[in-house]
């Protein structure tokens, strides 16, 4: 059963279906009405997927034009299956088009990241961190001191797993989906590891006097 928002209820009382109700009604009907709705939905998902890919210029260049178009088409097709499979969970708390777009955006981003990194090695070693020079002497001294403190904290307070994940995601800029695939895990688990690692680093740096905890953040 699809839930409806107060806005949808109001429009129903007034006798005029909202655009969202139109989408749901048409996608759950039969015949030419449903066929037309499916065609429009696929066009919308293609637009969402194409726009996501257009914003990822660095990865797009690594993949090549023909493969990029395959990514867009595949993402729209997979998003179509996802949207239709989850139609009954649409609560009407956002517009239907925004809700549907997010499936295409996710599929396109994940697929392009995967394709772009398909031939790249994911560095998961524990090579020592280096401190990057700063432009001015003052900035250099201050920045170098903080960088040293962070590097020491990474070595001292993070678990080997937290260190490996945090460095791969942030220092080596491995996309989280790619890292999850290579490690046989998922995005949630990796983000939780990073979340906990940040908490540990911040608590240690606060104790050492390098940063002030945010309100509600424990030392």
């Amino acid at each position, binding site marked *: 059963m699809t839930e409806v928002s107060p806005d949808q209820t109001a429009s129903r009382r007034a006798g005029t279906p909202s655009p969202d109700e139109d989408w749901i009604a048409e996608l759950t009907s039969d015949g030419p009405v449903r066929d037309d709705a499916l065609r429009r939905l696929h066009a919308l998902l293609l637009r969402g997927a194409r726009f996501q890919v257009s914003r990822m210029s660095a990865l797009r260049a690594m993949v090549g034009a023909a493969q990029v178009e395959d990514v867009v088409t595949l993402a729209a097709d997979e998003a179509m299956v996802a949207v239709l499979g989850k139609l009954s969970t649409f609560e009407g708390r956002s517009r239907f088009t925004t809700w549907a777009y997010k499936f295409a955006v*996710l599929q396109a981003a994940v697929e392009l990241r995967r394709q772009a990194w398909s031939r790249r090695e994911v560095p998961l070693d524990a090579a020592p961190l280096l401190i990057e020079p700063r432009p001015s002497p003052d900035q250099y001294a201050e920045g170098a001191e903080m960088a040293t403190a962070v590097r020491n904290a990474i070595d001292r307070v993070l678990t080997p797993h937290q260190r490996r994940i945090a460095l791969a995601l942030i220092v080596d800029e491995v996309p989280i989906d790619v890292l999850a695939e290579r490690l046989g895990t998922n995005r949630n688990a990796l983000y939780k590891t990073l979340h906990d690692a940040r908490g540990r680093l911040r608590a240690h740096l606060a104790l050492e006097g390098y940063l002030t905890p945010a309100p509600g953040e424990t030392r």
Partner: protein
Amino acid sequence: MTAAGRPLSTEALSQLTTEPGPWLSCDDCFRLVDRYVEALLTGGADASAGDLAALPAHLSGCAACAEEATTLLLLAAGDEGVDPADALRRLTAG
């Protein structure tokens, strides 16, 4: 990467030590993000209330979710004919 090590850039330093905020999984971010971008685009206080309150910290800390949320915001703004500039500024700031 060579055996000599990895550079620790200012940006990486900032990302490693960013305040993680309340826990929100990437799956929950995905579940809520359509409501969040629309709340931002209408300029309502709803964007920082209730179950949306943990979104800004998650989007500050998760590059992939932030990249996708930005796209969604731009798509929704385009469909509505709304200037996305203010909403984009608030996307990770709450």
